[in-house]
């Protein structure tokens, strides 16, 4: 089997804080990481590689040159090769343009059986690039995959998570699956693997390498545009109750009753 994993390098948004005085983002010291859902996608690919001999796993990403660090991490986890789509022309891409670029990169990689991607990236939370890449490649997609049950001759059976349960879906291959954290526990790298990963070349392609005109990528090919961005206004601080615990509890209940909230 030939498996392609789509991955993104993201800032660890959990470590971002807001400057309480200026109301701006404090980004200093926030590390860049492999997007968590993408790590689950890669882990799923690596498990399939272990189960089906002859399987290769290629990781592809679109991003700035620094994203090679994240791709080395993917190689160290066990991916066979890594490709970075990187060019100034890709900048400012929305999900629509990102999926066009990824699909072009994947086409250049040739025939594939399965594409695994994370459900969503923690810096954008859109969950759109996976299914949109599938649409552009003309293959079916299943999102929110929590379990891969079985691979048949021309299809794969998976569990798709829903808010109130899950569905068992059989989908024709080749296809795109997007992974959620319930799918697996991503493995750690070993020292030996990290050393190996640094001996491998990471392929870097720009728009010419994947046959895209500059007008087909990045900001130029993005139907959506950010009109403005702002830090959400904090809700005004309320009242701190004082006294002993029973006094505070009684005061709270009284205030709620006064407001007819109870």
């Amino acid at each position, binding site marked *: 089997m030939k498996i392609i994993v789509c991955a993104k390098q993201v*800032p660890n*948004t*959990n470590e*971002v804080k807001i400057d309480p005085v200026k109301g*701006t*983002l404090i*980004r200093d010291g926030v590390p860049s990481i492999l997007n968590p859902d993408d790590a689950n996608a890669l882990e799923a690919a690596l498990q399939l590689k272990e189960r089906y001999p002859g399987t290769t796993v290629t990781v592809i990403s679109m*991003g*700035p040159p620094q994203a090679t660090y994240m791709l080395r991490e993917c190689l160290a986890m066990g991916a066979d090769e890594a490709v970075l789509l990187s060019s*100034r022309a*890709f*900048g*400012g891409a*929305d*999900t*629509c343009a990102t*999926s066009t670029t990824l699909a072009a990169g994947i086409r250049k990689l040739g025939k594939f059986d399965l594409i695994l991607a994370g459900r969503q990236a923690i*810096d*954008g*939370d859109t*969950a*759109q690039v996976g*299914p*949109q890449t*599938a*649409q552009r490649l003309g293959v*079916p*997609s*299943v*999102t929110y995959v929590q379990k891969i049950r079985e691979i048949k001759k021309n299809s794969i059976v998976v569990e798709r998570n829903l*808010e*109130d*349960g*899950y*569905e*068992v*879906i*059989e989908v024709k291959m080749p*296809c795109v699956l997007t992974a959620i954290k319930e799918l697996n526990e991503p493995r750690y790298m070993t020292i030996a693997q990290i050393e190996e990963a640094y001996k491998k070349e990471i392929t870097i392609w720009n728009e010419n390498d994947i046959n895209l005109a500059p007008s087909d990528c990045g*900001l*130029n090919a*993005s*139907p*959506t*545009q950010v009109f*403005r*961005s702002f830090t*959400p206004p904090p809700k005004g601080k*309320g*009242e*701190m*109750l004082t006294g002993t*615990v*029973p006094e*505070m*509890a*009684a005061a*709270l*209940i009284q205030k709620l009753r006064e407001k007819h*909230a109870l």
Partner: protein
Amino acid sequence: MAVRVIDEKCKGCQKCVKACPFEAITMNERLAVIGAACTSCGACIDVCPFGAIEKVEDLKKGVDITQYHDVWVFAEQRDGQLMGVSIELLGEGKKLAGEIGCKVCAVLLGDKVDNLVDELFEYGADKVYYANDPALATYNTDAYNKVIYQAILKYKPEIVLLGATHIGRDLGPCLAVQCGTGLTADCTKLDIDPVDKKLMQTRPAFGGNLMATILCPNHRPQMSTVRPGVMEKPARVPGRKGELVNLNVAFKEGDIRMKVLEVVKGLTEKVSLTDAKVIVSGGRGLGDPEGFKLIKQLADRLGGVVGASRAAVDAGWIDHSHQVGQTGTTVKPDIYIACGISGAIQHLAGMQTSKIIIAINKSENAPIFEVADYGIVGDLYKVIPAILEALG
């Protein structure tokens, strides 16, 4: 739109470099240079003391937007029941349609769900586009995508809204690519520009640390998925009628490439956080999973449900279905009681529009107190029993 540095005005102060959430700006010989990671968010424009960064409109080809009319709402049904968010969107769609001066329409797909057509009229739909076919009984990406895409091609809606459920977030991206248009995910606020009548879509980004307002100026339809529980449900008007339009359904061999073999409902009792009037949530401060027994006692006494912070869910103390916040459920109950929750930005993003917020935490510096209407500094294991006592 793109962001551009006006080299003559740039003084090399590097404020933009620090302000950029995406690390897209670097310095080159004391001049700011905007790199490929730029998303045109504009954070740098606001901080530049010299007005050296500007937004430039770019001339992009789109479609003839004057041909597109009406606001469509995807009426998501599961087992013949409308999802709450679809009803919320009818209310929001009606508001938007009123500002544009057009109709609000529902798009309903299913197998013999005729009764839902009337329900949609009663919740305010002027028109219902209805596709009735056994192949549409349960959601199927390929089948739903094909039917709705063809309807969009034929009837040309100006705006298409979907609930940001697992299904809406699966269908929306596929439809957007088919239509060659943009899609804004997980919106929490929608407005119509009073001048050009374009849809202004506001959503949290960057883990809830930033809000971004997104436009889709030159492509149609303008598409958004909207977070459940954010918009108000409209009142139901019994007997209200509208126009029914039946959609053609015809599938060819190979159109539908996936099959739902089985639908399994969650084993855990469904937690309806979005509909709850009262939510009592527990976090890391509980110390152990047993703490949720006390949380549940208070929730039961107030007729509410139990919520949790991500920390409590990640610790394995409670199921993910209880999680409130950016990666969980967005809630806005009448009363939200946060017990032992410090108030990470991701949690606040999911609950700060609650009507009354009560925070109980040992640490008086916990950020949760910044959004609380009433704060109690103390041990929740003493405070909650005292509240139960005071309730009588």
